[in-house]
Structures are given as C-alpha cells and as structure tokens.
C-alpha cells in the first residue's frame, strides 16, 4: 500500500529523469523490487542496503529506483513491467514468488536485463538468477543450538513451505544432529514472510511447548525480542539483530548482497553482462555470520571451525549418510547433494518433528 505513495514519487522522479536524459546519456539505471518494506530490518532491508552499496560504489554512473512491499503474483508482473518500460537497464526482483512474472516480462523486453533472486527459471537469455547458500549458515546454527540447548529441542519459525525454507530446516537439523543425534526441531509455519505480531505469537507458542532455542525464517525482529523476554537464546535472520537481544542472539545469518549488485550493475554499464546462475555462500562473502556471542568459548570455537570447514570447501552440510524423514535412504556415505536437488528440496530429513505441508 505504501508503495503507491512511493510509486507516485517514483513516477515524478522518472519524469524528471527523462527530461535530464540529454545530460546523462551513459547513466545505467538499476531498479529493485522488494517483497517487504525496506524498513523490515530483515530480507528487504538487506537488499536495499545492496542498492545503497551500488549507489556508493558507482556514484554518477548509476541511477536507481525501487518499489517496496510489492505482493507476489499479478501485482508483481505489473510492477516489473512498469520498471521495464520506464527505462531501467537492469531489474532485480528479490523474492521467490517473482519468478514467473520476471520471466514473463523478460520475454517482452529483450533489451532489459533481469536478475531474479532465489529462483531457478531462466527462460530467456536476459534473465539471470542468483541466490545465497544460506543453508551453510543454518548448519552452523544447528551445531550451536545442539551445544547450547538443555532441552534438546529447538523451535523453528518458518514462512512458506518452499524449497529454500525446507532446505534451511534440514541444514539446521543436520547441524544439530552432528552434535546430538537425538536433537529435535519443532516447526511452526507462520504462512507469512512478515507479521511481527504473528511471529511473536509463534515464538511464544514454541517456548510454551518447551523449546529453549528459537530460530526463524521470517523477516521481523519480533521473535528475537520474545526470546529475550523469556530468557532463552535465539538466532537472528537476514541482518544482525544483536540490538534486539544483546544477551540473546547467538549469531545471525547476514545477507550481504552489495558485492553482487555492484558487479552486475557494472557489467551492464560496461556492456559485459551475461546470463549467469550464481549461488554463492560463505566463501564468496554473500553469507556472513554475525559475531558468535552469548555462548561459552568452546562452542564459539566449534562454530568458527565449522564455518571455516564449509568456507574452504572441506565440508558440505549435505553430506551422506542422510536418511529422509520416512526412513528411506537419500545420500549414501560420503555422497554430497547436488545443487539441483537442494534447490528443489521438498522433503524433510530424518529428525524433523513436523509434517511438511504440501
């Protein structure tokens, strides 16, 4: 709703920009579409930080625009198309649900470059996809959770049952079970990416059910605050949420999109843009772990060691033997999951205390 106001402002800016085009012929216009408000201090906030990084790095060579709180679905297609018409050279669509609309619009605007986050469809040569290997961070969190939990049960606030989220839950469980094979994870689906009240309620429900560690795959800081209130530990999401739980946050998976955005916008500017499918993690600096805090030194050391092993490529979180939830074999001893399976993940591994919604 708020984007309506912003859109009016954006339209005014665009009109102004059109007048000034004679002055700045070689400016590259980079446009961003966010699923939440830039003030969510989570997912969309971090993407917007990436936009600001682009502005800072490229200065006058770039012009940016963004639309926030764009619902996934029909609205998204209109928003993307409007950007494409308004002279954007490259458009970043930053949510899984923008996948089909992005490809649809890309077909109609072959000269505009499209970059879709977290998806897997590249139906036209002008569509790239990019994602971060968040599961690497989730595995580390699982290791920490198993070390820190006295109850042996963690609570997981999840958004929607899409592969990205399921993969995260599995990685967390595998990390925890590498320390404590009996470790359990309770999952609550909020069926929203962003609703502070509901996320807080989910955290309270999980704590009342006996979990003593909270982790989340939703975007607000509310669960962190509830955990702080109830005196248990929690993991942040997307940004460093330490301010909301100075004695609560163990670590947080911080999404750092800046380097990738700068690289891609520069490529458009210099005419070297090519279709890619990027899936980068700790190694490339797309996934950054917030400082390990509120845990004993030996746990922090173990977390760092695990992080280093994943970064160096010595260890992959999805390494067999791993069984699926129903007890059937998935990966044999030493076998490593391939990216395609991970990106389409629609099953739990053994040990998740939940029925996967389908």
């Amino acid at each position, binding site marked *: 709703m*708020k984007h309506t106001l912003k859109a009016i402002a954006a339209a005014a800016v665009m009109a102004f920009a059109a007048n000034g085009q004679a002055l700045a012929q070689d400016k590259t216009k980079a446009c961003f579409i966010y699923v939440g408000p830039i003030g969510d201090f989570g997912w969309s906030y971090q993407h917007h930080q990436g936009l600001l990084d682009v502005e800072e790095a490229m200065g006058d060579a770039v012009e940016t625009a963004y639309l926030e709180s764009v619902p996934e679905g029909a609205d998204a297609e209109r928003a993307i198309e409007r950007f494409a018409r308004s002279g954007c050279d490259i458009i970043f669509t930053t949510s899984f649900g923008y996948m089909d609309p992005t490809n649809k619009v890309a077909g109609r605007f072959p000269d505009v470059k499209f970059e879709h986050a977290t998806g897997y469809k590249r139906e036209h040569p002008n569509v790239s996809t990019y994602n971060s290997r968040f599961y690497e961070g989730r595995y580390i969190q699982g290791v920490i959770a198993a070390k820190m939990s006295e109850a042996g049960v963690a609570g997981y606030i999840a958004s929607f049952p899409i592969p990205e989220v399921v993969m995260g839950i599995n990685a967390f469980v595998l990390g925890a079970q590498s320390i404590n094979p009996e470790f359990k994870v309770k999952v609550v689906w909020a069926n929203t990416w962003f609703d502070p009240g509901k996320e807080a309620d989910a955290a309270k429900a999980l704590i009342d059910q006996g979990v003593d560690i909270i982790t989340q795959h939703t975007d607000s800081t509310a669960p962190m605050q509830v955990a702080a209130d109830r005196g248990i530990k929690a993991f942040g999401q997307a940004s460093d949420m330490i301010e909301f739980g100075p004695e609560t946050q163990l670590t947080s998976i911080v999404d750092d999109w800046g380097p990738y955005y700068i690289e891609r916008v520069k490529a458009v500017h210099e005419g070297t843009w090519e279709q890619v499918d990027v899936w980068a993690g700790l190694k490339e600096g797309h996934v950054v772990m917030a400082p390990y805090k509120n845990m004993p030194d030996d746990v922090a050391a173990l977390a760092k060691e695990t992080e280093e092993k994943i970064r160096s490529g010595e260890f992959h979180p999805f390494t067999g033997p791993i069984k699926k939830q129903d007890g059937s074999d998935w990966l044999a001893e030493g076998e490593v999951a391939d990216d395609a399976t991970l990106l389409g993940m629609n099953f739990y591994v053994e040990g998740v205390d939940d029925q996967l919604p389908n």
Partner: protein
Amino acid sequence: MLESILITVATAATPLLIAAIGELVVERSGVLNLGVEGMMIMGAITGFAVALTTGSPWLGIFAAIIVGALVSLLFGFLTLTLVTNQVATGLALTLFGLGLSGMIGESFVGRPGIRLGTLDIPVLGDLPLVGRLIFGQDPLFYISIMLTAAVAYFLFSTRAGLMLRAVGDNHVSAHAQGIKVVRIRYLAVMFGGACAGLAGAYLSLVYTPQWVENMTAGRGWIALALVVFASWRPWRVVAGAYLFGGVTIGQLHAQAQALAIPSQLLSSLPYLATIAVLVIISRNRRLTMMNTPASLGRPFVPDR
C-alpha cells in the same frame, strides 16, 4: 503452560478489541471509517517514537491517542463537512497512514523500543493459574475491558448514547428532533481514531516493542470485521476478539505439537471460525437488522 497460553491470547486479542470498540462507536453513529488500519499504524509509530524520545511509554500512548484522533479528524472533515464518499475516503486514509508512518519511521527502524511494564501485584499475582492472568497483565489489557464496559453503558444506558444511536439509525429524523447530527458524528469519529491510535501503540509498545513498517499487518481490517461479527454489540466484540486470538494462538500450538494437519488449513482456522460463528449468529435476521445502524455509510447534509 495454560496460564502463559491464555496471556498470549489476551495479548493477541487486546489490540483488536481496542480498535474494534472504537470503530463500533463510529459505525453506531452511522459513519463507516475503513481507515482503521491507517490510524492504527499512525498510532504505532507515534507511540514508539514518543516513548523512545522521551523515555516514557505512557507519554507515547498519550501521543498515539491524540494523533489517532487528529488523523480521524481529517477523515471527519472530508466525509462529514465536505461529504465525500466514506468508503473511498476511508481507504485513502489507510493508504495515507501506511505511507506517512513509513516515512516518519524511517529513522526508527532497527532500534529496540521501550516495553510498557506489566502490573506486579504481590500475593494476588502469585495465585495459581489465574494470578498472572487476572492480576499480572499489561495496564492496557485492563483498559480495554473497562473501555468495553464504558462503551456498552454509554450506548445503551445514557441519553447521549441514545442520541448517538438515533443519529446512526435515521439521521433525518434525528436532525428533525434537533439533534446535532454532524457534531455527534465528528465526536464519534474522533473517539474511533483515538481508540485506533491506542491499539497501534499497543502493538509498538506492548505486543512487539519495536517499529517496523506495516507492522499492523492487517489488524485494522480484522478489527473492522469484528464489528460486523459482533453485530454492533460491545460485549460481542470481546467475544469475537478473544475467539480470533484464541484460535490464532491455538493453531500455532497445534503446529508446534506436530499434529498431522496441513499448516495452511490451521492458519486459516481463525478466519473460518469467525465466519462460522457469524453465520450462526446472523441466522436470526430480525435481530441482526435491529442491531445494524440503518444509516451506516450514508452521507448527511443538514439542510437538504
């Protein structure tokens, strides 16, 4: 555990109750203000910003009430004085509030807020089961119940309440009787705005003490629905808000218990339960008609 679940339910229900009780008075006077969401979010940012700047949550709450009333005054001026369409103006108010609050709140993102403390009564608060539930909640919980009682008494036991309902039922006859229709509607609209502001402050100072854009996440619309659900009777709003809150929290617990029910179905339960009850209570059409303000949403120009 039960005690803590019940407290969680009360926390979820209170903002809905406060906003809905305000809107109920507005609608009883014959005005439909769809801007509850916008007024609520303005209350949320005002409460948060003032509390953080001054260090006093109570000042924040007071400011949120004032701002809620002021924003609703804008709606009142447009719909009552300029006689614009109430539905369109209300929707515009929601968009306006969401946009403006995001702009004001930009510098408050990512800052932890101040929580309004809970009552702490010795002895009584330590009673088993009901101790914290009845004696240990946040002050606004008690205010929400007292507000309901006050509105119920005002509407059905006072002369002013009778006048307000008369205006809502038939503004032409009320006007002919010498009742100042527009003035009463202005006051009702402002009361509704003040309540919505208070409900917003509840979100940013009690429920989740932080500011994030869009943090009302549709609660204003639920409050609007609750008024219809309650067939414009104050105590039924309490029932509706607690039913909705109860089912919301209940389904989260069901999920945490790993019940073999799809989570999407569980998530829709609060809405399904509300609709089911609505269908049952509106079977008696005569009773429903009797409670519905007959002039709801209809414009009134005194000298026409």
